[in-house]
Each structure stands twice: as C-alpha cells, then as structure tokens.
C-alpha cells in the first residue's frame, strides 16, 4: 500500500543547458498507537480495533486466528462514509483496512474495524486465539505510519 518494499523513487530533470540533476525521495515514517482487543460477547468472539490517530488516509491490518476454534462471520467497518474498505480472508488470516486514493478523506478515529467470530467449541476466554502479523497506515502525504499495538 505504501510502496515500502519498492525502490526509492528517483526524479530526473533536464535543465535548458543540457545538464541533468537527480534527487531521491526519502520516505518519512512516523508512528501511532492502535489496539486490538478480543472479548467474548453473547457467545461471539469480537475483535475490536482501536485507532485514535487522525489524518490517516489508509490503514491495513493482517490478523491470524485459530481456525480450529473459531469461524469468521463478518468484518465490519466504521471508517467514515467516503473511505474505501477492503477485507481478504484466506485460510486463517484476515487482511483488512481502508484507503482513500484522493487523500481527502481520513479514517474516522475510534473503533473503525470489528471482526466477529463464532466459537466452534466452548470457550472460557480467548487469549491467543487472535494474533497480529502487522498493522500499518499512511497519511495524506503518503508517509508511512507504523501502528504500535498497545
């Protein structure tokens, strides 16, 4: 999403005298806090993503779960009216997030994402059933924002 795995962008310009100059665009990285908490609510396992940072035009989370004990029911979004949301479910990994290509809209702070699971067995609690691979975001200037999970 943020081109973090691609080569740094180079721009080349030619002056009127035929000299050429080049510069390398250095990506600025910042960080913000996020939370990923699970709870048993009315027989369902609810994973709530907390994100209070403002000015984020994109975010992506990759979360794994124990598919011997949980079945994914739904991914819900409360990111604002104009964000484009996505979720990909493959085996026991869910990748989800939001992006606004224009950079005009930002993710609504609060609890923008929820994952809802049905337990396959009786559970007393849910520790370890959900785990995070990564979480990252991008701001309106295309700067990478590392999301620290608290």
């Amino acid at each position: 999403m943020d081109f973090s795995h691609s080569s740094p962008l180079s721009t080349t310009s030619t002056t009127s005298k035929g000299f050429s100059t080049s510069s390398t665009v250095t990506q600025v990285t910042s960080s913000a806090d996020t939370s990923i908490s699970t709870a048993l609510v009315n027989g369902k396992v609810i994973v709530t993503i907390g994100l209070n940072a403002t000015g984020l035009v994109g975010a992506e989370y990759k979360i794994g779960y124990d598919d011997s004990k949980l079945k994914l029911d739904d991914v819900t979004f409360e990111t604002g009216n104009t964000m484009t949301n996505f979720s990909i479910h493959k085996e026991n990994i869910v990748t989800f997030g939001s992006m606004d290509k224009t950079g005009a809209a930002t993710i609504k702070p609060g609890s923008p994402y929820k994952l809802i699971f049905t337990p396959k067995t009786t559970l007393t609690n849910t520790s370890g059933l959900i785990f995070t691979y990564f979480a990252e975001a991008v701001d309106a200037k295309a700067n990478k924002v590392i999301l620290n999970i608290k």
Partner: protein
Amino acid sequence: MNRTFIAVTVFGIVFACSEVEEPAVVAKSSVPMELGLNSVGIKLESNFVTNEAKMNVRLDAADKVTIKIVDIAGKVVSSETVDAKEGDNILKVYTKALPRSSYELHLYNSNNKQIGKTVINLL
C-alpha cells in the same frame, strides 16, 4: 462447629439432654493443586506449552483483567480483557495458532497497573 441440643420434656421434667457435634463442612477448592495460590498473583500450569495453557489469576477483588501476549520483539500480538471475580480465576491461553517462539504474558488490572508477568515457551 455446630452444636445441637436435644431435650425431651414431660410434665416439665427434663429426661434427657445431649449434645451432638455435627461434622464441619470442608469446602473443596475447584482449583487444581498445580495452580493453587496462597496470595494475589498469577500462576501458569507450565511454561512449556503445546496447544494451550491453563493459568490461575487470583484477585483480592473482582476486576477487569487484560491479558497481553507479547513476542520477543516486544510487540503485542494478542490482547484480551476478561471480567475476573474475587479469588481464583482459571483462564486459558491458546497457543496453537501462534508462531512457535517464546512469549511474555502481561496482565493488567482496570487501572492499567501490571498485576502479573510470566513467560511461555511454545513447543
């Protein structure tokens, strides 16, 4: 100790009086011996875990407890908040889907104060 007095009275005369001692009721703890705690704290069944581990969280008052699983890089990979009662709370830590490694378990109360910390090694 419970005491019971038995008296038979006929025309105002007491003919017998005895004291019966009933056995005291001994409460059986539902906490397995290996998870027993004498004071507030946490105790893990074993630090070496395959699919799941049992953990006793003993509190002096009911509270919300947050359990965080932290990897060796210090990143929180899993977090859960449970309603725990006063006394012993047997909770499970499921590790089947976690990448095989060592993790720390951090426990916090509702005031975000750390109330326990331990290590699990996934086999």
